[in-house]
Every structure is written in C-alpha cells, then in structure tokens.
C-alpha cells in the first residue's frame, strides 16, 4: 500500500485526539504523538483501536511501544498489513 496514502489516513485518525488544531497543520513524520502532538497518553489506546479497525490488523502491546512518532506508526501499519 502507498505510504503517502497511509500517512494521510493516519493523520485523519489522530486528528480528533490532538488538542490544538495548529499542531496538525505542522505535522510531519518526525513528530512524536505524545510529546509533540500533545495527545493524552490514554488516547494512544484509542488510536490503536481505530487503526486496527481501519486496516483490519492486530497491533500487540510490544508493537504499541514502538509507535512513538508518526513515521514509526506508519511503518508499523505497513509491516502489519504485509504480514
């Protein structure tokens, strides 16, 4: 699947959880979900559920720990879609 398409879709998924809309305008792959985008850590659980539903994949607890940035999350999604 096209990486650009997944980035766009992931941004759509995380947007509701980002408290300040300006942060979404300046989003890029290097941004950390919690530290840069100020997403409440409890909502990482919700983002993972939304991602699982969107791509019909399963993200286990170890994988969640490796989804710190937007880029890492996209890589994780691509890896799980392939497998």
């Amino acid at each position, binding site marked *: 699947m096209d990486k650009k398409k997944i980035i766009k879709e992931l941004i759509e998924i995380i947007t*509701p*959880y980002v408290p300040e809309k300006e942060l979404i305008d300046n989003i890029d792959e290097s941004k950390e979900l919690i530290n840069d985008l100020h997403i*409440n850590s*409890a*909502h990482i*659980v*919700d983002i993972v*559920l939304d991602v699982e539903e969107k791509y019909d994949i399963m993200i286990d607890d170890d994988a969640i720990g490796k989804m710190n940035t937007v880029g890492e999350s996209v890589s994780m999604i691509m890896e799980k879609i392939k497998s």
Partner: protein
Amino acid sequence: MADRRVVITGLGVVASNGVGVKAFDEALKNGTSGIKKQQDMVDAQLRCQIGGIPEISDEYKQTYLPDLLVSKIKNHAVINGLLAGLEAWKYAGLPVDKDEVDNESGIIMGSGALGLDYTTSQKVQAVENGLSRKLGSFTIPESMSSGAGAFLNSLLGLGNRVLSNSSACSTGSEAVLLGYEHIASGKAERMLCGSTEGDGIYIWGGFDALRVLCADSNDEPTKGSRPISNSLGGFVPSSGAGALVLESLESAKKRGANILAEFKGGYVNSGGQRNGGSLTAPNFKAIISCIKNTLATSKIEPGQIDLISGHLTSTPNDVNEVKCWVESLGLEAAKFPFINTPKSMIGHSIAAAGSIELVACVLQLQNNYIHPNINCDTIHPELSDLLIREKVPSKTLYQEVNTLIKANFGFGDLNCCVVLQKWKG
C-alpha cells in the same frame, strides 16, 4: 464567622420536554410532556413501557463539546451532565481558561447508577466476548460515578472541590445544598452544582421489578405521570441533567453577574430506616423534621412560602408527602402555598430529578409563573380536605413567586429540602 450570602447566577438543563434552559422554560409554561413509548422497554417486556429521554441533536452537542467528545462519549448520563453543566457555566458568563486553573471554583455533579446507562451493555458484551482489549480509554471515565464531573472539569479546569455525590433521588438537591454550604462557609467563590441520569432497561428494569413504575399508560404515555391525582399508579422513569452555578454574593457583585435567585439554605437528614422508614420507604417524622429545619436555617416563616416544589413522584407516597407538608407548615388550607412538580411532565429523573426541578424553580422565581401540575384533574380523595383544588394548578399561573421551598426524598430513607428566594437586588 456568619455564613455568607449565596446566589444563583447560571442554569443549564437537559430534560425530556426541553433541551436547554430556553426550551425547558417554554415547555414548563406550556405544560408539555416529554414522555414517550420506549421500544427497549417493550422489547424487554417491562410492565412499564414509557419513559422520558431528552432528544439531543448533534448540532446541540457541537455547540458545547469538542469533536472528540461528541464522537466518543456514548453514556447518556455523561452527555447530559456535560451539556447541562457547560450551559450553566456559559449562562453565568464565566470564562474558560485553557491554561490556568480557577482555584476559587469547584464542581458537585451527582449521579445515581451512572454505569447502568443503556450504552454500558455494549461494554459488558465486549468483555463477555473476550474483547476487553477493544474497550478503549473512555470506558472507565464513562462508567465511574464521578464520570460526568470528571469530563466536565476536563473542559472547565476548576481547582476547588470536585465531587460527585450519590444519594438516590435526593442526589440533585443535595448536590446544590453541598455547593451552597461550601460557598457559605467561605471555602469557594463559585460551585457548579447539579446531577445527571442515564436511561434504559438496565436502570429502569430494577424499578419495574419493585412494582413502583407506572404500568397502566403504555398506550397513553403523556398521561402516565399523575402526581397528587386520584389515580396514583407509579412513577414514569426518565433521564436528563440539571446544573446551577452558585456563587457568593460578593463574587457575583464584583463581576457584575446577572443574579437569578438567592439560595437561602437547606437541610438534609435520614429517617434512619426506623419508624416506618426502610431502604425504599420514608420515615415521615424525619421528613417533617427536615422541612422544619430547612425553614429554621433559612430563616423563613411558613406564611412567606408561595410555592412548594414537591418530590411527588406519582406513587401512593404523594399522599403521605402532602400530609407531611401540611403538618410541617401548619397552615390552614386557604393559606397553604401552591404545590407542583415538573415530574407531571418529565417523569422522575431519579438522581437528576432534584437538579432539573431546581432549574424549574429558579425559572418560576425569575420569570413570574407557576407551572402546571398536569394530569391531575381530580385531587386524591385523601387530600381533598387538606388541599384546595386551586393550589394544584392545572394551567400555568402568571404571578410573582417570591419564596419557594423544594424537597426531594430518596431510597435509603434520605431527605433533602432547600429554600430559594426571588432576587430583588
């Protein structure tokens, strides 16, 4: 130190006959019922198949809530409490600071069995199907008894006492009384007080099993709730939320707030589940004592009272309640105040009843009317010697109301009574 004066500066409400203060005010004046047939009660074969559920549009939610909460929160008690609370805060003209904490303001948002809302069934199902990992982060805050208050404060950022009381059907009026006491004693300047209730068969099924719900009006829902009437058949369950901003008179004056009414005082007690009181029935001596103590602490004489907003659920206990009011006030029938309850229109909102009804009380003081007590064509025969027919209005009376007394009684033999007065500056 003498207690400080406390006034009401904001109102918010979500009720089955009106969402928002303006709609609720109109519905009260028009005697509009919010009671409808409820399909989930029919499907579950409850004896009572009617209830009052507020109709909240997505647009209405979007005016108060951020998109995330609009899309994620499903628990109706949490939604109702959020909408009523935020409307009251805005009504009072109070600011919301994104960064700073307001340490002079707090929240008391009571609830009954918040986690028994209809939507909780989906969570239970998920767990039973081995899918607990799919519950999401909202499950706990959406089902804890303090959930509505917690979500409310995620938006308001208040740093004083934040509490969710739970005292059955007296929860709502007790929440407001607790807020009053906290301000009167100098511990806070402003308290956002209220209570909330969800809906559906997981709450109402238990009341149905107790045989306390109305089972004779499934084909005529708006006729089911008949407080004080000669056909007291059981209460009609409903959901919703009410909220009031209480504020020290100093604070209200300092910021030039629009003062809606003065909170004069109140009293809570329990009948101890003795002398006729039990888990589900009141000890009448305690009710009378609660009313008398309310008058004493509020420094009000019975003759000053223009209106009683009763608990009056449309069960046979209405007869005993009216007898308690008559004995407590000691007034002859001609001098007895008017008496009504919004329950005739919206049913019994259980934990939310007291706060929704207090919003109705403030509206009647502020806008000079006494709303009708619908579905009471004939007063109960045991009360016909105690109450003059005109004291239980069937149509809205447009006249000044200066002093009003309000009570709620709850399972566990709990009583709460408060006095409000018109604000004349």
